[in-house]
């Protein structure tokens, strides 16, 4: 590894050094503000190093990692998302009776894991990245240790993540046994050769790898942890799990399993299609009459990953652009939605009951507007980014003749409209009789004011959603550039 390579992987180095720095400072002087400041500074430095890395010509640094435009784009996305989560966590942690400094360390290490994932081109970096991300999340989910919900959520996540990691390891071993190499390119060659009946071992191996991936993505049938963990974990951590964790793994999926998606006749393709359909259907149906806002968003995220899988299956560069754009829209929307929950939460419990949102339109109009825009974007209303995202996915799917998947996508989106609109109605409707329909009880006391920094972040996210819903071209160009470096068939 040459000296120049260090510059190429400088974003990863920056992401490694930052938690160390934060940790050392916390050892000597405990200060919430200092920790947040160092975190944001480190993330800013990381973002800056992206451009340093972009200027380097050598991309492949050891067989483990490739810092191409794709990786840089996603690391940028993850970095920004983490920074937003950190800012949202600021006032939340202040209300929670815990020591906040370690939280930021864990957040940063999780991001490091995610960054390693998106740049990974080898099983080793795949595994390590995934595990760093996972273990950091175990600790983050259980961070408010005095809350029974958090502990329960952490246990469920721990056991399921551990089990699926084991599947992942075993699957990787099987593929390695047949391929003789652990690099993504080698695996691609093997798969491209056709997964015939002779290659049972490889297929089984890939299925088991998909188990590990599928758990993180929370698709059916590995989705059952999602509502419980989303509900039990602290709201900003939920935001992180919903966005960074899923996004990083999806980016890796696109890179590693590209050849799987291009062969429409293979059984694996069928299996993934079934998973996509099941996720879209189950995700949207399960949210229908939920009264817990976090659970609604959890189930909706299952559905959205189903939509993303349709983009994945569509294959081709256009589909890659669709997936990338949809991910960005999904990140912005989810962060906005969970951000609202975070800002409204008190130290005792998160603002996740439907009744907490009753009349929010009158009590805190800005937050209600943010939430409404986020929900509209999730539903795919025109003028929001969500609409453009769904539109490009449908176009990609239609272009690859995935008619059944596209039809399911459209139909289940219609179901989704119900529960998103229900939330909006609860926020804006003031009459008790109409509220019986919406299923909300008397309003609980949630944070009546405060969280200024969070509100600023949320306003920025809302503007982002609306601006790019009406003028998406620059972002589409960026995603196209990022995705073009993948070896499309």
């Amino acid at each position, binding site marked *: 590894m040459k000296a120049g390579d260090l510059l190429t992987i400088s974003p990863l180095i920056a992401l490694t050094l930052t938690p160390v720095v934060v940790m050392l400072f916390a050892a000597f002087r405990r200060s919430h503000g200092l920790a947040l400041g160092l975190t944001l500074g480190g993330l800013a430095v990381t973002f800056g190093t992206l451009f340093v890395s972009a200027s380097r010509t050598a991309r492949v640094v050891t067989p483990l990692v490739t810092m191409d435009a794709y990786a840089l784009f996603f690391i940028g996305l993850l970095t920004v998302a983490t920074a937003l989560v950190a800012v949202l966590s600021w006032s939340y942690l202040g209300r929670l009776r815990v020591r906040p400094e370690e939280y930021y360390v864990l957040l940063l290490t999780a991001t490091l894991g995610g960054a390693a994932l998106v740049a990974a081109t080898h099983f080793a970096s795949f595994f390590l990245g995934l595990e760093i991300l996972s273990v950091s999340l175990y600790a983050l989910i259980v961070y408010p240790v005095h809350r029974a919900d958090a502990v329960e959520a952490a246990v469920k996540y721990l*056991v399921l993540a551990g089990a699926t990691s084991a599947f992942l390891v075993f699957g990787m071993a099987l593929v390695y046994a047949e391929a003789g190499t652990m690099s993504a390119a080698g695996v691609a060659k093997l798969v491209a050769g056709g997964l015939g009946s002779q290659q049972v071992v490889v297929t089984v191996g890939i299925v088991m790898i998909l188990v590990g991936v599928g758990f993180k993505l929370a698709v059916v049938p590995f989705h*059952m942890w999602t509502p419980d963990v989303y509900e039990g974990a602290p709201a900003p951590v939920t935001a992180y799990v919903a966005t960074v964790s899923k996004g990083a793994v999806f980016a890796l999926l696109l890179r590693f399993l590209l050849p799987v998606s291009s062969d429409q006749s293979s059984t694996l393709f069928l*299996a993934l299609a079934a998973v996509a359909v099941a996720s879209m259907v189950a995700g949207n149906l399960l949210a229908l*009459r939920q009264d817990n806002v976090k659970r609604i968003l959890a189930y909706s995220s299952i559905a959205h990953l189903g939509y993303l899988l349709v983009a994945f299956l569509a294959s081709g560069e256009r589909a890659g652009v669709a997936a990338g754009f949809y991910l960005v829209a999904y990140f912005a929307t989810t962060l906005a939605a969970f951000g609202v929950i975070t800002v409204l939460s008190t130290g005792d419990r998160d603002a996740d009951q439907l009744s907490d949102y009753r009349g929010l339109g009158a009590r805190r109009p800005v937050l209600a507007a943010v939430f409404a825009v986020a929900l509209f974007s999730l539903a795919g209303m025109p003028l929001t980014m969500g609409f453009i995202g769904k539109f490009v996915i449908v176009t990609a799917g239609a272009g690859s003749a995935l008619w059944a998947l596209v039809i399911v996508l459209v139909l289940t989106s219609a179901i989704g409209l*119900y529960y998103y609109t229900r939330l909006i109605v609860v926020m804006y409707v003031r009459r008790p009789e109409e509220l019986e329909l919406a299923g909300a009880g008397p309003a609980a006391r949630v944070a009546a004011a405060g969280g200024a920094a969070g509100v600023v972040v949320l306003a920025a996210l809302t503007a982002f959603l609306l601006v790019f819903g009406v*003028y998406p*071209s620059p972002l589409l160009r960026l995603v196209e550039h990022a995705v073009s470096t993948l070896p499309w068939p």
Partner: protein
Amino acid sequence: MLGLLWLIPALPAAGFLALVLLNRRLDRTAAAWIGAGSVGLSALVALLVCGSFIVSPPAGDAYHQVLWTWMDVAGFAPNIGFYLDAVSVLWVLVITFVGFLIHLYSTEHMEHDEGFTRFFMYLNLFVASMLVLVLADNLLLLYLGWEGVGLCSYLLISFWQKDPQNVYCGRKAFIVTRVGDTALIAGLFLLFTQVHTLEIQPMLAAAQESFVPGSAVAVAAALLILGGAIGKSAQVPLQTWLPDAMAGPSPVSALIHAATMVTAGVYLIARTNVLFTLAPDARLIVAIVGTVTLLLAGFSALVQHDLKRALAYSTISQIGYMFLALGVSGWEAGVFHFMTHAFFKALLFLAAGVIIEALADEHDIFKMGGLRRELPAVFWTFTIGAAALAALPFVTDGFYSKDLIIATSLGSVDGNLWFYAGAIVGAFVTTLYSFRLVWLVFFGERHTEVSRRPRRRQLVPLWILAVLSVVSGLIWMPPWLAGFHPFETFLDTALPPIEFTGEYAHFAESALGALVTISVVVVGIGIAWLLWMPWRRGTHAFSESPAVRPLAAYWLGGWGFDWVYERVFVIPVKWFARVARNDLVDHVVDGIAWLNVAAWRTLSAGQTGRLRAYVAVAGFGIALVLAVVVLR
């Protein structure tokens, strides 16, 4: 100057945003300034832009301004762009100017309403959407405006939400127009698959070249667009929502359900006239729909008790006239009548609002009467409006436009005696019901005392609209009069001129033909006077008599359309229904909802909260996939 085109829809949109963001912090005055001011500014800009357009027309008699490309996906790249030609100039001027007058009126009329700011928020959004609709250079953007006005119509009809009846009326409006909207979307899809673009001008040019006149494609596309137009413009058979839409405040009825939104259908057909020229069968249907509607609604208006409902049926009827004109290739005549109608109908609705408010929310005309001396300004302006509606010869704009339509219905290349007969009878009935309102409301003995008088901001718009209702007809005088027709010349730059080449063209165009119209109107006024003035009691007794009563009731209920819809759709599920009106459609929808909820219950029961169950489900899924993969 033309470059300011984008400001015209942008200003009301900005007003809307400002009102949304600053909602809590605004007092009434500020909200009124923002709400009415944004539309006023827009009217000013419109005046400048359109003035510049008229005085020095750009090349090709059209101005195209593309702001940006909304998205560029797989070769589908709709723009956010605006297109200005004679037709859109007309609509823009009417929308902004009449819109501003109505906003001004509303600042006084809605003064004591607790939803004052919310009202202007919705109204601004409406004006912005309507302007986007008429200025859009591609059908997708037009559809965005189309949906926007539909949404605002719903919000404003059900503005006084506390009464569920109002909400029901809003919902009914939304759902009935939805039927039309679905047809429109299907039409857009069809057009896109045929010509691969949704931009209006290129699409029309491509259609002109590639569609065979009279071919199935052309007819289908035209009919689907007609479907959309019928819904939005409340023509038969989708007219049932408009009378119920009167549940909204009077300014709403004036702006949305008289002057602008309901004319969106007329605009759409005028815009896509090339398609209709290529499909004579579709044109015929347009004319038939127009004629049937104008007669049906006219007769219904004749027996209404509620002042606003009478005006609503009148609106349906007058738009029927516009459709008739469009259907016989009298594009310019239809558009002319749109303009005159916008003025006098808005005037009538605003005046009705003043009357209703003055009599402490009394809507029944039989409980009015004798208001001539109490509300003189309202009397004169209302009468001018009614006269325009009735097409009082020479001194009202309604005469010029309606006479033109009547002449076109006979003399145009597509005209025939049936349409002519319908138009003439319709004119007679129109005169009857318009002056019935005048006599019953303003003359005779007073049944309700005036408790609130109108103030300046309500009266000024009335006077302005009254003046417009008199003079605006003079810009297109028939050839046998003075032949002063700059308006026709102006419209010729964007629309095909009316071809008086039918059998009776010569008669239709001549002064003799106009004499028929004039005499019908004058006779109508006379008969109306007789029926509702000296013989008032006799008329009332007559309409109550057992022979006539069912007929009157039938007309009152809008020729029983609602009655039929209810019977045909309700009877199969009547034993099921608890709500007043149920549809078969409701049943299907409920079934879908039930299915979804049942599925939810099943799946939700699966989320037991037990970790081992989660592992088991995952394991089961894995086993299933592995089995399939290995065995295949």
